[in-house]
């Protein structure tokens, strides 16, 4: 059992969850993730380590509510426990002194990119963070990212704050103007990482993406998370999650992420019924 120390809604669909996990906090490195199983009935889901504190013995994950497991997590309170937590998993990000680095983040990836940016800054890189959100209200963690970057560019799809567009738009503009960028890291939804990779490809700027394939164990045992990179089959959980975005077969990844769409809807409906209607029925019975 792992104790939840805080659950803060950052924006309407993203929660910050801080969990007591001293052993994981001691070993965590940027780019790694943990596998969470909320309760006895729960699925095993991967979540990127957005922050950790080895001394305090805590890890922080950001969850975007998309289905049963993430809804269950978001509904827990400080003091509650989650049943299982395994980590740190995956290979850490490949960090070095590159020169000028762009860190692009969208959705939960805005949080996931933070430790990567912080470490890159620590290694002496010039760090430019670009974050995206559909509308202004969905932006978060600007101050935190500001602290670990030389420049922070905010983009919104509707232009309600900062640059009007998506993270890859200012990146493309910089490259077109002949700006020198030595490396790009992108964390976010599949589509965002694909577009970012496509934007940098013509300029030959190496772009590392954190793939989000469906997982079960997260230890290399099932092959559920397999992706194709450079024509070779790789397991995201042990060979990644970070891969060269120019080599990823995006179509395959997108297809494999939809395997359980029908079941996900059924599962969520089932859980919502359990959660909301059962207590009411019980009251009526009494």
């Amino acid at each position, binding site marked *: 059992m792992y104790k939840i120390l805080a659950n803060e809604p950052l924006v309407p669909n993203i929660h910050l969850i801080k969990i007591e996990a001293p*052993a*994981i906090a001691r*070993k965590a490195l940027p780019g790694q993730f943990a596998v969470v*199983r909320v309760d006895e*009935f*729960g*699925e*095993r889901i991967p979540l990127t380590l957005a922050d950790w504190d080895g001394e305090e013995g805590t890890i922080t994950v950001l969850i975007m509510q998309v289905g*049963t*497991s993430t809804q269950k997590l978001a509904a827990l309170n400080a003091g509650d426990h989650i*049943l*299982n*937590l*395994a*980590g*740190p*998993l995956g290979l850490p990000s490949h960090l070095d002194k590159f020169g000028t680095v762009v860190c692009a983040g969208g959705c939960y990836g805005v949080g996931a990119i933070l430790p990567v940016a912080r470490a890159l800054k620590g290694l002496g890189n010039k760090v430019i963070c670009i974050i995206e959100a559909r509308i202004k209200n969905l932006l978060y963690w600007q101050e935190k990212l500001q602290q670990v970057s030389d420049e922070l560019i905010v983009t919104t799809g509707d232009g309600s704050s900062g640059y009007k567009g998506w993270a890859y738009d200012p990146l493309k503009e910089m490259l077109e103007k002949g700006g020198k960028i030595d490396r790009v890291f992108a964390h976010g939804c599949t589509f965002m990482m694909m577009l970012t990779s496509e934007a940098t490809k013509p300029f030959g700027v190496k772009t590392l993406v954190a793939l989000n394939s469906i997982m*079960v*164990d997260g*230890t*290399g*045992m*099932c*092959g*559920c998370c*397999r*992706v*194709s990179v450079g024509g070779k*089959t790789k397991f995201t959980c*042990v060979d990644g999650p970070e891969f060269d975005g120019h080599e990823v077969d995006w*179509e*395959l990844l997108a*297809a*494999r992420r*939809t*395997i*359980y769409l029908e*079941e*996900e809807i*059924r*599962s969520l409906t*089932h*859980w919502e019924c359990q959660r909301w209607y059962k207590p009411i029925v019980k009251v009526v019975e009494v």
Partner: protein
Amino acid sequence: MPRQDPKVRGKNFKEVALGYTDEMAVREANRCIQCPKRACVEGCPVYIDIPAFILAIREGNIEEAVTILKSKNALPGICGRVCPQETQCEIVCSLAKKGAPIAIGRLERYVADWELKHGSNPGSSSSLLPSSGKRVAVIGSGPAGLTCAADLAKLGHEVTIFEALHVAGGVLTYGIPEFRLPKNIVQNEVDYVKSLGVEIRLDSVIGKLATVDELLEGGYDAVFLGTGAGLPMFLGILGENLNGIYSANEFLTRVNLMKAYLFPEYDTPIKVGRRVAVIGGGNVAMDAARCALRLGAEEVYIVYRRSRIEMPARREEVENAEEEGIIFKLLTNPKQFIGNDQGWVTAMECYEMELGEPDASGRRRPIIKPGSEFIIGVDVVVVALGTTPNPLVPSTTKGLEIAKAGTVVADEETGKTTKDRVWAGGDVVTGAATVISAMGAGKRAAASIDAFLRS
């Protein structure tokens, strides 16, 4: 032995084989001629005193039979169910020549089930040796790890098992399905190991959370690697990453460990489809096929490139599968998978095969019949080709010699690896093998570790 009716059991996950009644057990025990040569004992990898425990059954002293079994085998309830008896103890039974060997496995199971029902408590701490003050880390909670940990604890050492998954038991828990090995039996054995004072730390992926070197530096005097062979192999043919194509490990893990057969009560989903093809001929393939049937598939094929007699699966399970209506497509091997425009598998192109000269394994080698390609329509495919050791521990441990197949090199008698204070045993050393051989290796390593700790 009584079994559930095939038509009924094909729709539930309850145990297929119901076990002997008291009368049946005694009748079978009476057939044993107690031969002085004791050929059967030589066939058992852990040398159970088979005639003695059978004699105890015959005399109605089941408690004595329990003691005899448990002195050599900590997990009789499991071995009685899953050992490939027809190639081990039963093949060498003196009565086998006449075609009717003693059903040693079934008798073993009968004794273990009797114990479970009558609840004797072999874990009472009185049988433990006084504390040695030494600490051992066991990595992996499969049969190798559990056996090694139990023996070391009985010898007075402080043992911690580190298990990557959220339940202990290894393949016994995530691989072998409920209808063949009920999970309460595995849990019972795990509880027994805990009752000996062994601490089991779940959710602990060694190589990530801590390395073997860190464990050795952090206060453990010795380490036993029982991490199994969990890395699934694929065919490496066109279309293998299409939606609907599973490794057997994923398919079985979703069903057994994550309880996808109870979806949506449990959150983890699984796709079953109408027509399922399982590729392979071992126990893993039989288990996957029979799970698919129980989950509601209309047609389930076993696609195997050799013929029936070369199938490595336990004979009993092949018979069970056939009785339940699994369709065997023998001498057949896939060439490629064909998908639709949404990325889902819809068909499988196969070759017909024929058997040539025997290969290194002594089995006749399958050869493609030229021009024999044909198509089988499928919605779900399960690839059950075998597994190799997971590199997480080997790749993070300095000084551990690894063989070409990815297995850890260890002495057969002692389990000692090339690294100081590190032992290994089970599938991680041999490649995918059997429960009883993993237990034997765990036992031998425990003896060697004990000798080292006392020297």
